[in-house]
């Protein structure tokens, strides 16, 4: 969990209630556990439906990472989206490994 995680969710104005924050963390951990392995398994010769699923996985992780205060992970997820959208699947595995490292606190 990154240092700015709590700050991003709760800072400024009225903070979300603690039970909501706990639920968000649980949901994000579940999302990472569900989607990251699919991204890690993506091969350069992936079928179109696998690429489409990977796009959705990267997009969801990117959006959710912002909510949980993981901007660096969100940026990498967005970069993966761009590469997948451009058909550059071959460069994706390296990016996904970078994403996995940034999200390692959520998989332990």
């Amino acid at each position: 969990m990154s240092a700015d995680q709590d700050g991003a969710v709760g800072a400024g104005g009225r903070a979300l209630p603690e039970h909501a924050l706990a639920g968000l963390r649980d949901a994000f951990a579940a999302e990472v556990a569900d989607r990251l392995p699919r991204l890690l398994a993506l091969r350069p010769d992936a079928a179109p439906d696998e690429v489409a699923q990977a796009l959705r996985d990267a997009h969801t992780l990117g959006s959710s990472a912002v909510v949980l205060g993981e901007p660096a992970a969100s940026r990498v997820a967005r970069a993966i989206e761009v590469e997948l959208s451009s058909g550059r699947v071959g460069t994706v595995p390296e990016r996904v490994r970078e994403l996995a490292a940034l999200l390692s606190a959520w998989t332990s």
Partner: protein
Amino acid sequence: MDLVSLSTVVVVDDSAVQRRFLRAALEADGEVSVVGEARNGREAVALVGRLRPTAVLMDLDLPVMGGIEAIERIMSASPTPILVYSAFVAGVNSDNALEALAAGAVDVLAKPGPDDTGSMEDYAAALRRALRIAVRVRVITHPRGRLRSQGMVGTAPALGGGARRPLLATGTGPPDLDDRDRAGGTVKLVAIGASTGGPQALLTLLSQLPPDLCQAVLVIQHMAEGFIPGLASWLDGLVSLPVVVGESGRRLAPGTVTIAPSGGNLLVQDDRLRVLCVPPDPGQFHVPGIDATFDSVARALGPDAVGVLLTGMGRDGAAGLLAMRQRGALTVGQDEATSTVYGMPAAAFALDAVERQLPLDLIGPAVLGALGRTLR
């Protein structure tokens, strides 16, 4: 808690994180109850039909059935104020926002990205504010979803696709000619103000203007920073007149629709239609402001302009339209029955700023009548 004022909301997102965040954000002030969650467009259509919530908060990028189609179907079967929030509506993706508005959504918010500096609680507060406005919008059955289900329309037109015709027949009757002799030769500018529900109303109105129009058209649409270029591109692909974003120091071109840029007020400087973009007044809520532009048109052109105030919440444009009328311009207000929100036109009507109050379909013919033209 005042149960009478409690708004019920269905949230639609395929991410459990986002759904949880939305629920927590919306329910934080005790005025909203999230009564249902949908993971895709198809679930959303069914859930809204069953629960009949006060409003819907929906992402656009959805599996099974996409957000645009879901909006069309909801607005066809169970008209409900829909507030879109999505990562795909800002910057280069702003055409998606316009497509959502055209499909019947009442407003669009961009999801925060990794480089946004505001906190998520700031964003949550923005969502609550937008929802408070959205639930006050009186929505009407939107025909596109119904026509699509009957195979009468294709997919939504692509940005800049050159369709060059209205999306839908407007049901316009015979031309409604203005009974005063404006001769058409003296009017130089048609100034149009719009807010909530504006993009769809603008499409209907601008689609009725012919490609050889001799007058300049200036549009002031309340819209968040970054969305105006998308609005211009979207309209440019659908109406016969070219549509551009205004630039400070330039002149408004005849036969061209110029949309006021975001970030300031666009003022008409003189009867040669030179415009200047100036910073908004301190505390000005809507930027670009309609009052400021209409007032400048009144001073620069007097009777040689037509003012039109379309659907929108609040009262921006009412005082400016009154100034135009007092200087002899024809002033038109959209009527209550066809307004998504009868706020600005109502305020103008109450000030006696509206010379002619008309249903949306008849505003184009009335404007053309004032220009000495008839609807083709």
